[in-house]
């Protein structure tokens, strides 16, 4: 009888030991997994902010290019003042003493004077001359289309300030 009890006690101790070992391993696995998950979530956050940083940088570059193109186009328009009062569809009817067809082509689309031409091309997609309105500064509308080498096209409208047939500034 005593032997049977001793055997049972031994069996129970063995079971308790294997239970404790399983519990320890399980806790180690759960703890390790949680640590790994927290590390990975930090890395995901870093990767997400890297992607948004690249997008922001791209948007800023496009804004810089478009604002620069507006200045380039305005400077070229200033060379041919007859165009300032004409809508874009009538530009090809401008007298050749004001602008030649080659100059008009150079004005209507082109590139920024960038050495490696990384930025892409621009095109004037619309120009509306200033509408005479009382008590308001006169503004012409310039619509620009930006075609980068990579990525989607972008359009932006600028208002060109006009006084006495001459450009006086640019507003986004």
């Amino acid at each position, binding site marked *: 009888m005593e032997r049977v009890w001793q055997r049972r006690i031994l069996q129970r101790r063995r079971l308790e030991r294997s239970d404790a070992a399983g519990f320890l391993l399980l806790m180690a696995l759960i703890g390790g997994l949680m640590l790994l998950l927290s590390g990975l979530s930090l890395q995901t956050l870093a990767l997400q902010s890297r992607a948004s940083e690249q997008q922001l940088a791209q948007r800023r570059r496009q804004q*810089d290019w478009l604002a620069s193109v507006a*200045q380039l186009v305005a400077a070229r328009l*200033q060379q041919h003042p007859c165009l300032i009062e004409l809508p874009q569809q009538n530009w090809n009817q401008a007298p050749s003493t004001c602008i030649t067809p080659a100059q008009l082509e150079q004005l209507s689309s082109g590139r920024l004077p960038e050495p490696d031409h990384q930025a892409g091309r621009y095109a004037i997609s619309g120009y509306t001359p200033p509408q005479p309105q009382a008590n308001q500064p006169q503004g012409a509308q310039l619509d620009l289309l930006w075609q980068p080498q990579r990525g989607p096209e972008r359009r932006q409208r600028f208002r060109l300030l006009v006084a006495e047939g001459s*450009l006086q500034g640019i507003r986004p």
Partner: protein
Amino acid sequence: MNLADVVVSALVFSAASSASLQIAAGSLQWAGTHQQRQTHQDAAGLSLAAGQLLLERRAAAAGSAPLPDCDQAAAELAGALEELPLAAGLERQLQLQQDGLVRLSIRAADQPPRQRWFSPAAYGLCRPDP
């Protein structure tokens, strides 16, 4: 529970924690440099905006006396842009280009530059030749 169980559990836990620490340390290091890059980019953007503001102020101050020579107006603008304060860690480059344009490029270390072209003619500061 014998020694082998303890050793296996300890190995699993230490491997997981060292891997997680490495990942976290890499992410935190990147977050630090990201912060620095962001600060530089913001400062570069401010410098470009300051350049634009300078051009607009010159246009407002010039009134109705445009210069006959746009290259001279561009050179004067470039000189004034050179005088603008610049945040630490940034490098400024100015270049006179065709059509009387001034290229202002602001670069922080290890980053692509931010650049804008300014035209005095677009603001009525000079009268370009046709």
